[in-house]
């Protein structure tokens, strides 16, 4: 991040137009005592965007979301929502609403009273609040459950109440803190689709915190990857998957093989065992890097069958294990000092390699990707 790479290496999507910025974080830092939870991050979220904040637990993504909500105040930096500085405004003074992890529904109130709560607090009269609450309850397909208490609902239904309770206030930005974490797989996938279409219909920015990279990749327009309080990279799913800017992002998004190497020149890297591999990269000679090779972009064949044009990007190896996945085959190929995962389509049994076979692996020059080791 310190040395901005040349344009064709940039993985960050084009900056959003000023007028369309819903949330703007500039130099935001949050410290809890000696612990820095969020470290000097700059981030713009566009109006109408489905934006995910992704990272392992403790990476600062939830703290960032809570700062946007007003549940935490930043230690340093500027936080604007539609151009208005809200850094130290309490949550009830901000045009944003939150869907909490585990929903935080009010257990003593009915579904209708939960949903109308925000309107009532803003002074809407009881009848009008109930009418609008019922509209939202219908939108999230819970009609008929208005008088139930949260404890009488299933997890998926509670999730919908939480969504309706936030959306009834017509927030300018909707914040969602791991909203699908408590649901089982099938329901989670359904809700992913529903959330996505709801967001498209409403045209409101959704800022979505998750530790599930698949969830982030499938739902979001853009994703911010965080690690240990730092914002590592912001981009579209394909930017992060195909053009990661750091070893962490390459490793965290999807499956990959990371092969340690040193930069020889702008077109060549030297692997740990001295093998030279053609790999265009923007780093100065001598930089310690890792080459990221996705398992599905590696070809495998018998020794000596490497097509001539792939010679500079090939390695000899031995099959160490074969995993049969039905639609695919996963080979664990031992290459001198490391093992690489190679994923191919399923082929007839007689064409498969077996443990102990000598093989050659190669990849397209554009399939590898060099990331700095930091």
């Amino acid at each position: 991040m310190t040395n901005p790479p040349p344009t064709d290496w940039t993985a960050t999507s084009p900056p959003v137009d000023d007028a369309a910025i819903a949330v703007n974080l500039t130099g935001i830092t949050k410290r809890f005592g000696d612990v820095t939870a969020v470290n000097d991050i700059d981030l713009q979220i566009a109006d109408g965007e489905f934006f995910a904040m992704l990272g392992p637990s403790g990476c600062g993504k939830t703290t960032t979301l809570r700062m946007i909500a007003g549940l935490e105040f930043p230690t340093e930096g500027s936080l604007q929502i539609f151009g208005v500085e809200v850094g130290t405004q309490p949550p009830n003074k901000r045009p944003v609403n939150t869907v909490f992890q585990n929903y935080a529904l009010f257990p003593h109130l009915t579904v209708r009273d939960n949903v109308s709560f925000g309107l009532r607090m803003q002074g809407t009269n009881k009848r009008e609040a109930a009418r609008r609450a019922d509209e939202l309850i219908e939108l999230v397909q819970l009609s008929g459950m208005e008088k139930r208490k949260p404890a009488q609902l299933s997890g998926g239904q509670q999730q919908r109440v939480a969504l309706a309770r936030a959306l009834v206030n017509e927030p300018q930005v909707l914040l969602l803190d791991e909203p699908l974490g408590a649901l089982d797989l099938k329901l989670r996938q359904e809700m992913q689709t529903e959330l996505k279409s709801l967001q498209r219909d409403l045209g409101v920015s959704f800022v979505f915190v998750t530790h599930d990279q698949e969830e982030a990749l499938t739902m979001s327009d853009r994703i911010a990857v965080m690690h240990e309080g730092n914002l590592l990279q912001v981009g579209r799913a394909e930017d992060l998957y195909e053009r990661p800017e750091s070893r962490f992002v390459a490793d965290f998004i999807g499956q990959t093989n990371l092969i340690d190497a040193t930069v020889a020149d702008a077109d060549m890297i030297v692997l740990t065992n001295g093998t030279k591999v053609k790999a265009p990269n923007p780093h100065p000679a001598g930089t310690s890097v890792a080459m990221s090779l996705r398992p599905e972009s590696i070809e495998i064949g018998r020794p000596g069958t490497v097509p001539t044009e792939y010679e500079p990007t090939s390695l000899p190896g031995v099959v160490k294990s074969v995993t049969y996945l039905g639609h695919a085959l996963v080979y664990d190929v031992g290459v001198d000092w490391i093992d690489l995962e190679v994923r191919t389509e399923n082929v007839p049994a007689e064409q498969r390699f077996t443990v102990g076979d000598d093989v050659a692996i190669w990849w397209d020059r554009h399939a590898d990707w060099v990331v700095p080791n930091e």
Partner: protein
Amino acid sequence: MSTSAGITEPRGWFRRVLQANAWLVYAFFYLPIVLLVIYSFSDNRNVGVWGGATLDWYREFANDEPIKTALGNSLKIAAASTTVSVVLGTMAALALERYKFRGRGFFDALLYLPVIIPDVTMAVMMLLFFAEAAKILGFSRGFSTITLSHIAFSISFVSIVVRARLAGTDEKLEEAAMDLYASRWQAFRYVTLPTIMPGVLGGGLLALTLSLDDVVITQFVTGGGWNTLPVYVFGLIRKGVTPLINAVSVVMLVASTVLVGLSLLAQRIRGGEPV
């Protein structure tokens, strides 16, 4: 029960011993109460000698001015001390459970002290304190001193009960309320308070019972002829026991049973929605 007897269910002689034990414990609890109630209807001055059924003792209770005054005092003191200690105890519970501040651990330990200290010690402390305070402020002992001491020990019990309830409620609920445009006060009024209400009611009931029951501390800090019902009854016993005491006790027993019933009912109904 017997249809789903599992491996952990006791069997044979062991089972019979356990059953006998249960019956003994219940007999130990409730036989004295049964005797108390029976002899309150006995037409004989000596407790323990059955002299035929009568309601005389209840009539005497109803016509006994000192007892009625003592009962009135007890109720006034209990009402005042319960109200104050519920408010202060709930506030203390909220502070200790929800906020981090310097010396929280110290205050935490301090709050439990009145529960641990023997009544007599507490009573002597209170008496000395009021004697000193009276020199400066010049008030006399009576209603105010009794009420203040009852508040002093009730706060601890209220806050223990409320804290247990608070610990079981999600802190995120208050955040959710504030995210939904509630001010701090509204978040407390419409979300926190309704969710801890069973604890507040339970704590209040405990405070009420403790105040109505207390003899030792009240006796030390009273003055100016102020008597509460238990203290007056205690005095009567020294003059000689008559079934009048049984009658008074039965009335108190019924009253406290009704109170407990009401509190359980209140906890079951609970609710409340934003006005």
